[in-house]
């Protein structure tokens, strides 16, 4: 296990390095400059300011400088938020995004699992159909439509919950609900399919033949073995949601990281593009690693290389 972890860690570093390189050169292919007032500046003025930033140097030189700074842990400063360090920009905004994503994942997974399990056990009964309809609706209604709907009826009309902002737990309920619908839908779908397959397999039949109760069969054998695909999608999904979602954050005025991904690209804010991409990639790689480890925990048949004596 230790050797495996170390090996994986080296791969993670290499992957990150490749991502950083690709992103850097792709980003430099974007047209335009990171200047905010470029509409009003003459080409000469633009050139002067870019020179001060060192952006007139050849791209490979800039790349080596960037890597050098990166090794020192310096992600640079933002252009759109004049001189604000990128690390500060990310750390200021990641809290709300992570909390919102985490809540949505926890709530969505639990509800999704229940729906999926019920649908599988009550296969082709009304429970199954209801769960399927919910899953299909959840997958097809965009979260911003649902979010707008929730905001208007629950916050504006009924005034049960706040319209927007991020000032305490009750402010998180509506965005969490809006965000978790997609999670519920995909978890329920995966769980139902896998459960159906597992329930019709031989060892379930054996378990039943041994006289184990229905609940026992479901909990001890069926659910555990059905979790593999759910775990697989859970890793990337968690990272996705926890690093911020543009639409929901905008709708509920959540001070999160979601918009930075998009805005920094639109504005050619090079250091922020690099910073957010690397941050996101690192989390994603980490999540994939955790998922790999979890496989073994859930299903003893899957064991990691070097894990067995």
């Amino acid at each position: 296990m230790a050797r495996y972890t170390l090996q994986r860690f080296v791969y993670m570093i290499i992957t990150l390095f490749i991502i950083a390189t690709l992103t850097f050169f792709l980003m430099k292919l974007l047209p335009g400059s990171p200047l905010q007032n470029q509409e009003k500046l003459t080409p000469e003025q633009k050139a002067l300011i870019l020179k001060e930033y060192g952006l007139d140097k050849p791209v490979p030189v800039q790349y080596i400088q960037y890597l050098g700074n990166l090794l020192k842990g310096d992600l640079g400063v933002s252009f759109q938020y004049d001189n604000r360090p990128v690390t500060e920009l990310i750390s200021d905004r990641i809290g709300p995004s992570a909390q919102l994503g985490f809540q949505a994942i926890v709530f969505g997974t639990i509800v999704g699992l229940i729906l999926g399990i019920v649908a599988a056990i009550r296969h082709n009964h009304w429970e199954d159909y209801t769960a399927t309809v919910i899953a299909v609706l959840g997958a097809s209604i965009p979260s911003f439509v649902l979010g707008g709907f929730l905001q208007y009826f629950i916050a504006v009309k009924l005034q049960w919950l706040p319209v927007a902002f991020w000032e305490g737990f009750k402010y998180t309920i509506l965005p969490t609900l809006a965000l978790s619908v997609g999670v519920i839908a995909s978890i329920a779908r995966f769980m139902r399919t896998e459960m159906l397959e597992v329930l019709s397999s031989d060892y379930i039949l054996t378990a039943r033949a041994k006289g184990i109760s229905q609940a026992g069969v479901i909990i001890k054998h069926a659910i555990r073995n059905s979790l593999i695909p759910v775990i697989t999608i859970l890793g990337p999904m968690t990272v996705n949601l926890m690093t911020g979602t543009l639409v929901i954050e905008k709708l509920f005025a959540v001070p999160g990281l979601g918009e930075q991904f998009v805005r920094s690209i639109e504005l050619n804010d090079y250091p922020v593009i690099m910073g957010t991409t690397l941050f996101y990639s690192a989390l994603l790689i980490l999540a994939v690693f955790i998922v790999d480890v979890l496989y073994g925990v859930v299903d003893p048949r899957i064991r990691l290389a070097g894990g067995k004596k």
Partner: protein
Amino acid sequence: MKKRFSLFLVLLLALSTFLAACGGGKDNNNAQGGQGGEKPAEKKEQVLNLLETQEIPSLDSALATDAVSFIVLNNVMEGLYRLGKDNKPVPGIAESYEVSQDGKTYTFKLRKDAKWSNGDPVTAHDFEFAWKRVLDPKTKSEYAYIMYDIKNAQEANTGKVPLDQVGVKALDDYTLKVELKNPVPYFVGLTAFGTFMPQNEKFVKAQGEKYGLEANTTLYNGPFVLSEWKHEQGWVYTKNPNYWDKDNVKLEKVNVKVVKDTATAVNLYETKQADRVGLTAEFVDKYKNDKNFHTKLEPTLFWLRMNTKKEPLNNVNARKAIAMAIDTQAMVDTLLNNGSIPAKFTVPKDFVTGPDGKDFRDVNGDLVNYNPDEAKKLWEQAKKELGKDKFTLELLNYDTDNAKKIGEYVKAQLEQNLPGLTINIKQQPFAQKLKLESNMQYDLSFSGWGPDYQDPMTFLQLWTSTSPHNETGWSNPEYDKLIKDAQTTLANDQQARWDAMLKAEKIVFEGMPIAPLYQRGAAYLQREYVKDFVTHTFGADYSLKWAYIE
């Protein structure tokens, strides 16, 4: 067995609710104590609740480039002058000024009771330091060019002369001498602009890289201070007890929250959490008859730039035909619907008044009108002159929703009214569009311009042959001369200068390098108890100094 299973399900459900609650609760213990909505119930309290669409990018006046930064700077800082209720400059940190006979040297007398929020006096040295900091190439200020009227400013900014040769000097603590390159009649108004704010040298140097990044790493000398700034969430203005004119500031506190989505902003207004909210076109119909609905006209113009080097746009009749073939009234009514008006000019309405006190627009009137018949006639003539019957033009456009609608509309109008013309729309990201325009790699381009200072010149200098923003290839020696005269020889004769500019605008429409489309308006809702909320046509969008709650 079945019964037991349903029991299990119930338990699981109960557990899930519990877990979900836990999940949220854990991260939230510290935030839970936060205020619940903070409804402005007691309205006599001098508290105003506002929304902004964006986080403040910078409070460093040397670096600010965007609308939000300039709004905040205008309310927490004060320059030599500030824009008053009627958009005319009124004394700020300066009490008065004297101007030399040749109009090139301004001597500002500063008031002695102006203080920074840390108690230091605001002196002429603070202005000299701040302005030279803007011009220092190392500062990388993107608005440095706005100071180029000052002697040696451009040279210093481009590294050709040292900063100490720039024509700004503190003669003593309360006297500031500014030497200009040319006489600039609008210079006093310019000192109200964000980039011209003073900075406390000691404080700025002590903060270093952190200056302007947080509420407590910035020093204030305006009507308000920022008492709180939570990034991406909002900020709070509190009345500045050190402000020299604090007796005229009535608001005690202004809460500003960042809300990027208009629908959300409207919902917050509806639930009385915001006192003023900007509306986009889709909300105008719903609120048009609301008593709190207002529109205002901004001095920002939009037009089609025409590449006069490309056939058929090298023909003046073709250009005139295009300018006359678009029904701009229908366009502002249906597509924009926010108080925008059709533009038939290149100097906006309600922007500047001449020495006679008359609006520039009232004197020069409309210079081009929608006239499909006349357009068709000119178009046929152009076709004959060019010896061709069919033309295809590319319309370069922004990639925003609003611009898409305008682009489609322009295409439909031109193709309908000018037979044989085909328009292809090419949408490009902002930066790329600017690049194509400045390389003149376009045929028609939807673009716009907002003022840099309060004078028709900010619009008129665009179309001189040496202007880097001309980008149409159009040039006219008479026009160039009129503009040059207005900037130099006539600069001290207000009436003659004004007449030259009036005449120049007419020449633009004889050559027609642009087809004007509209002057932008803005629709908004504002509660009736908000009084004297002053909006500006130049620089910052609004001032809170005089606002109060009734």
